């Protein structure tokens, strides 16, 4: 990432345009991803129907996050005090570099020989695995999807469904290559291969690394949501448990989870509850037979406070990473997860990435949207996602304007402010459109490459209206 950032200006945009073009031409892939999401839509709708009023539930979930994020100054210290009282140790990281250093120090102190990890997007954000491996630590991703992506040497394709783009045949081949297992086309058998492979690794690991979905201020607990049981095992068997979380994950009350946990499951995976929703408050207590001796929590800022400082987009910190906005996004479904080049893909990723990694390099993600708003409609915590894409565009036009674009819009204002000029310009456009279509006019050419354009009418509406003698004012 750092190396890439040093590349030529606009590299991220050029890469996006290139990858998007390649991807949309891969009809087979697009159909595969679309089909894989089919079951999600069915189960999501079935689960939503069990809510007596889904919209009110969204209000409540949104309010819980709104009131926590807007009182983070009060609730974050409260959470930390309670978590420490429970015997956990808190570490603060201003940025990715500091978080990596803290975790490496903890791993070193633990004299770790084997590290097992459960799914944690924040660790993807700080490129933790690469840092651990660089220092000679082996780290195993235990979530099936993450494990498959780790073997493939790829980041997650979708931050909830990491390998949704991979066909079972490819997984079979991958397991054959790395684990020496015979080929199979059965998702069940493939899952069992990973299960068998992983069991001894849980037992052998001395450090377990997890993320966190919620930090409960009033009780000092962290809440982790998962389906497979790998996070449960990761936090149960190794001697040291390290959890990495963004500071925005705080909620005030334990009771808030009674709304947020089912909403996360329904919006994110079409379930009534994710299989395991687990609250941890520190290491093993006296009288408990197992559990880690130490529990560490790394609290990461990494530009979250920059989003917090923007009242307009502060609600993007409400995000509970359910991924619902990706699943309905026509951009995501057509360009695929890798095209974004970000840790967080899809609409919410396009909103927050410019804050995390710079507006000038990442505003193209906000521009690459038809602003259809499907994302905001499904967001369980009512983030105004698609309007924030507009806000990013506005901020970019203010701070890093494209000179030619700005000139174009200034011309537009001159024309739009003068009805006679607008009418005259329109007439010229209509009468020359037939000819323009045959010339390589920018934008028009881009339209015509894939789409027809109708012939322009001879008379505009205003001409027809005037001629009918109905003009007023």
């Amino acid at each position, binding site marked *: 990432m750092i190396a890439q950032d040093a590349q030529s200006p606009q590299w991220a945009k050029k890469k996006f345009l290139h990858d998007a073009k390649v991807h949309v031409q891969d009809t087979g892939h697009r159909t595969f991803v679309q089909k894989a999401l089919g079951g999600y839509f069915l189960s999501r709708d079935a689960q939503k129907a069990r809510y007596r009023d889904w919209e009110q539930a969204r209000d409540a979930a949104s309010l819980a996050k709104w009131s926590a994020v807007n009182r983070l100054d009060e609730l974050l210290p409260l959470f930390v005090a309670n978590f420490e009282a429970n015997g956990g140790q808190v570490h603060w990281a201003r940025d990715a570099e500091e978080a990596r250093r803290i975790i490496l120090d903890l791993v070193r102190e633990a004299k770790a020989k084997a590290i097992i990890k459960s799914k944690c997007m924040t660790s993807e954000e700080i490129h933790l695995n690469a840092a651990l491996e660089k220092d000679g630590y082996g780290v195993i991703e235990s979530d099936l999807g993450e494990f498959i992506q780790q073997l493939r040497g790829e980041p997650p394709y979708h931050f909830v469904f990491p390998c949704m783009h991979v066909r079972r045949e490819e997984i079979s081949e991958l397991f054959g290559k790395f684990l020496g297992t015979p080929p199979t086309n059965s998702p069940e058998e493939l899952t069992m291969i990973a299960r068998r492979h992983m069991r001894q690794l849980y037992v052998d690991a001395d450090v377990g690394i997890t993320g966190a979905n919620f930090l409960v201020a009033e009780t000092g607990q962290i809440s982790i949501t998962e389906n497979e049981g790998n996070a449960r095992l990761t936090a149960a068997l190794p001697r040291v448990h390290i959890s990495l979380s963004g500071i925005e994950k705080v909620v005030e009350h334990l009771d808030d989870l009674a709304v947020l946990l089912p909403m996360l499951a329904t919006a994110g995976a079409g379930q009534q509850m994710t299989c395991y929703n687990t609250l941890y408050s520190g290491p093993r207590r006296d009288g408990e037979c197992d559990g880690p001796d130490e529990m560490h929590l790394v609290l990461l800022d990494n530009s979250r406070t920059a989003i917090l400082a923007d009242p307009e987009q502060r609600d993007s910190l409400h995000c509970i990473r359910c991924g619902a906005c990706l699943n309905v996004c026509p951009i995501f479904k057509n360009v695929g997860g890798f095209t974004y080049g970000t840790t967080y893909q899809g609409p919410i990723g396009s909103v927050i990435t410019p804050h995390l990694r710079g507006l000038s390099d990442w505003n193209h993600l906000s521009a690459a949207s038809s602003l259809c708003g499907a994302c905001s409609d499904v967001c369980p915590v009512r983030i105004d996602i698609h309007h924030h894409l507009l806000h990013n565009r506005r901020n970019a036009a203010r701070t890093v304007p494209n000179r030619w674009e700005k000139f174009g819009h200034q011309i537009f204002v001159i*024309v739009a402010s003068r009805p006679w000029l607008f009418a005259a310009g329109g007439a010229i456009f209509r009468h020359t459109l037939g000819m323009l279509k045959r010339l390589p006019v920018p934008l028009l050419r881009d339209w015509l490459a*894939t789409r027809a354009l109708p012939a322009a009418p001879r008379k505009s509406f205003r001409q027809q209206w005037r001629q009918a003698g109905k003009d007023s004012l």
Partner: protein
Amino acid sequence: MKISLFIPCFVDQMTPQVGVAVAQVLERLGHACEFRSGQTCCGQPSFNAGYWDEAREVAIRAIGVFDGAEAVVGPSGSCVAMMRVFYPELLKDTPHETAALDLAARTFEFGEFLVKKLGVTDVGARFPHRVTYHDGCHGLRELRVKDEPRQLLRAVRDLELVECDEAESCCGFGGLFSVKFPMISTAMAEVKGGSLARTQCDYIVSSDPTCQLQLDGWLQRNWRSPTGTIPRTIHLAEVLAGAPL
């Protein structure tokens, strides 16, 4: 009620028949229509591109044009959303905020206006065709107009209304997006256009002329129908005026 027509720039220049149909339907229902020729464009292209200072100038002008109009009715969910939803945001904390909110309260999308404001669902039209309805995203999600056009269509004589399986998906137009990211825009047109065409309808009815531009543009160029016919788009107002293309 005296209705002030809000004819978006695209309709004015490229699909004037839609504006004519709007006026016909409203007048048939006994309402006088006016067209204030000072109007040009709502400013959405600049607004969506992020050039809000430029868009603001255009918006302030448009607010002046429609000053005092009892009801402002436009045949585009997108342009109406610009006036109703985005003008107040654009002009927030400026001296024009009150005027923007005032205009927002008087501005309506055509189908919504008929059903919610005039209380009319049957305008007495006949349209003997199989049709499907394409929801423009701004109408659907910014204005929350979904049932009204369908209520109007169901009341049309001899019209058969069918739904497609991607009813709430975007056509991929998105204004300048369609030419800045043509490959993504086209892929979206493929998804939505294909879904609409697979209903084997004769017409795709819409309340957004620019969605029609996108869908027609894609279908005419790319759709390979087993029956050999390619559905055409038509504006809701044209259907209700009882005058197919």
